[in-house]
């Protein structure tokens, strides 16, 4: 009896071991409880009752949602991991590329100066072709320059007509 009182005090201080708690539970379930400790019997009875209780619907609803959230997190981590692996793989696998190169006959030539000379030659060729095909425009420009004084003749004629008109009125 004395021992049970001590155990109860220890229990409420939160210092009991699992074995001691089991002992207390058995004591309260035995039915031979001292009147002094009778008030605590219900407390241990409730604990026992809770053990036998089964999960009701709200709990059943919460569980799948928790799983879903966990699944999304897992999938996100998985996708990120795969993407990172691919990125690292590509970064490691791809050879360092230079923008200045030439490919002739299927062979790549990584020589900047060669590429520059090749490009210059091609641009120069375009220039020559344009100069040749657009040469009639040059002649047209010359004709336009040469007929420029004719503009002045028409101006003079207009002025003369104007003077003539004024003289007739008078």
């Amino acid at each position, binding site marked *: 009896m004395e021992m049970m009182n001590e155990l109860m005090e220890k229990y409420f201080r939160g210092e009991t071991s699992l074995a001691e708690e089991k002992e207390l539970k058995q004591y309260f379930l035995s039915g031979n409880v001292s009147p002094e400790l009778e008030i605590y019997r219900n407390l241990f009875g409730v604990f026992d009752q809770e053990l036998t209780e089964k999960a009701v619907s709200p709990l059943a609803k919460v569980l799948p949602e928790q799983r879903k959230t966990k699944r999304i997190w897992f999938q996100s981590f998985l996708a990120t991991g795969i993407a990172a692996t691919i990125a690292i793989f590509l970064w490691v696998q791809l050879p360092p590329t230079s*923008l200045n190169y030439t490919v002739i*006959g299927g062979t790549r030539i990584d020589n900047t100066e*060669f590429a*520059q*000379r090749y*490009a*210059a030659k091609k641009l120069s060729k*375009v220039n020559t072709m344009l100069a040749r095909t*657009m040469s009639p*425009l040059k002649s047209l420009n010359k004709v336009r320059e040469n007929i420029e004084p004719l503009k002045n003749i028409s101006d003079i004629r207009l002025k003369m007509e104007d003077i003539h008109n004024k003289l007739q009125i008078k």
Partner: protein
Amino acid sequence: MKKIMTLVAALVIVTAVQAQTLQSLFDKYRNDERFEFVSLGKGMMNMAGAFAGHTKNNSEMMSKLKSLNILTLNADDNSPLMKSVINELDKVVEKGNFETAINTRDKGERVNIYYRFSGKDDADMLIVTKEKGEFSVIWLNGKMTKEEMMHTFSNAGKSVNPFNMADESDNTASK
């Protein structure tokens, strides 16, 4: 919100597809042994221009370029490959929203210059030359306004030397 996201995604895809068409043509043939291909990155065009002897005005234009790609095919005019490549390029020009700037033809020689603008001042200039047994596509990409591009073309009409480069004979490009 969903609609906006879908529209943005569609716009990005359309832009990517449009940019890819010309790129995919170059990618398709760049390593083909029947073709010759040259690629120059930013800053290297000035040097290329220097080799070709262009002047100060055009060095400014060259400095604005981000990349230069040249694809050349040396083949018989009637060969299926030549016909196929020309056909593919025509489709690229048509679908790629290119506008014609210069179109010249003289004794079997043909020069077509196209341009387009995508995004803010992002310009593509495509120079297509066709002569007997040779077909070349020169693709210049850079940051250029429409005015600057037009200035280049108007110079072409005045000076008959748009890229202000020396004649081919002046160059010692190794080929």
